[in-house]
């Protein structure tokens, strides 16, 4: 990607000042309740300016919209950032396939920040017009629909769509030729594979099923991981000890949430060098990742405050911040 992002990066540098730092997270944690947290976030510029809605869900949804509205302002071509939007696309595909086969109304179930409108995906699935879908969704849509109609097994449908999503992310990331985006894709795919392998081991899935669920990536040999997952958890840990994820084994042994935290922290740590890159796409991608990480942390704190959970339990799950 040889495009010059000097203007966009300069704007992003100013925007980075508004990102929540560790002190803000501490302030949120120490707030006396949910309402105080919401007020603190409103003071920090969270939420939609024109809206009277101040609940966590609409506030965080507005924040995610703001990310993409800013990116649209910064660059006329959003396609290099599609890797961050494919999750929403494939979520919408999953919703559409299940809504069509079960004849339910998918309203309010679509994610808003995909590359394609959720309603459009639903209409194409309903009409079986797979060729009208974006290219990255066509095969997965057809395969998932066929599988769901033939077997009625939602899990098969899920693994087909989840794997297609990871494959699309990997494929798109390679086209961008951006180190940060490729790293994001690699980590996302590898982590999803590891989580799938652990889940499959715990639910006693067959080797064939596991191999079908895992998406290929560079840092994990999916064939070896699948074989390990078909045997035991210790075999998975043993295999991972010899990979780039050896340090994650301890986290995996503790809990799935500890592993997710390890992965998110590794990603945030890996994108930190982008703070000194003035010309390329990296800082924009890093900003998207940092904002998503921030939204995740805020969501965690708000739901904990709403349910009066223990502070230490939240602290354990909180990720490192980008700034």
């Amino acid at each position, binding site marked *: 990607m040889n495009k010059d992002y*000097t203007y*966009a990066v*300069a704007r992003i*540098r*100013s925007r*980075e*000042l508004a990102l929540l730092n560790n002190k803000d997270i501490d302030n949120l944690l120490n707030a006396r309740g949910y309402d105080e947290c919401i007020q603190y976030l409103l003071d920090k510029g969270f939420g939609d300016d024109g809206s009277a809605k101040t609940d966590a869900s609409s506030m965080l949804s507005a924040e995610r919209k703001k990310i993409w509205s800013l990116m649209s302002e910064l660059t006329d071509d959003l396609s290099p950032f599609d890797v961050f939007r494919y999750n929403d696309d494939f979520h919408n595909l999953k919703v559409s396939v299940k809504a069509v086969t079960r004849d339910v109304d998918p309203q309010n179930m679509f994610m808003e920040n995909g590359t394609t409108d959720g309603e459009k995906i639903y209409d194409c699935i309903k009409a079986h017009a797979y060729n009208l879908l974006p290219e990255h969704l066509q095969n997965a849509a057809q395969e998932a629909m066929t599988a769901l109609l033939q077997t009625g097994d939602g899990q098969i449908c899920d693994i087909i769509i989840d794997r297609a999503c990871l494959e699309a992310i990997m494929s798109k990331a390679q086209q961008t030729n951006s180190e940060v985006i490729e790293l994001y894709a690699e980590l996302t795919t590898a982590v999803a594979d590891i989580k799938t392998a652990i889940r499959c081991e715990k639910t006693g899935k067959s080797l064939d099923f596991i191999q079908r669920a895992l998406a290929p990536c560079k840092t994990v040999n999916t064939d070896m991981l699948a074989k390990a997952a078909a045997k035991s958890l210790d075999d998975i840990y043993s295999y991972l000890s010899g990979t780039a994820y050896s340090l994650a084994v301890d986290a995996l042994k503790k809990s799935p949430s500890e592993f997710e935290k390890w992965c998110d922290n590794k990603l945030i740590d890996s994108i930190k060098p982008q703070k000194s890159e*003035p010309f390329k796409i990296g800082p924009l991608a890093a900003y998207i990742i940092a904002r998503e990480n921030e939204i995740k942390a805020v969501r965690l704190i708000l739901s904990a405050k709403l349910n009066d959970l223990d502070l230490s339990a939240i602290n354990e799950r909180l990720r490192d911040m980008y700034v």
Partner: protein
Amino acid sequence: MDNLGIVFGLLGAALATFLAGTGSAIGVGKAGVAASGVLAEDPSKFGKVLIFQLLPATQGIYGLLVAFLILSKIGVLGGDPNISVVKGLLYLAASLPIAFAGLFSAIHQGNCSVAGIGTISKKPDQFGKAILLPAMVETYAILALLISMLAVFNIPGLNL
């Protein structure tokens, strides 16, 4: 072909202006793009980013200065325009340091200014340190200017 000396001299003046000016235009342009990005978010930083943007402009001025000197020495701006081919070539050679050092130093100073603009957009209190880094690149443009000027001033005294 009798006036080939003045042709070479003029070519030297043109190179000094063209190459150093091109470098400055690229450098100032790049820094300007970054400065616009910062101003879109925070217009109060106008004064600071303007200084960063102007840093790569000096090479163009140095090139212009050397070109003026050459033009006056070869008689284009008045005086005797009959100079030898050898002296014409010497003026051409004298213009090369500022032409090329001006071109490359301005481009790299522009890149350095862009990075500096990024720094002050996040940490305005680090303005003093941030401006020193692109200013270091200026050293090499000044060295080239010095050599070009010394050469242009002393060519008329040579017995050739």
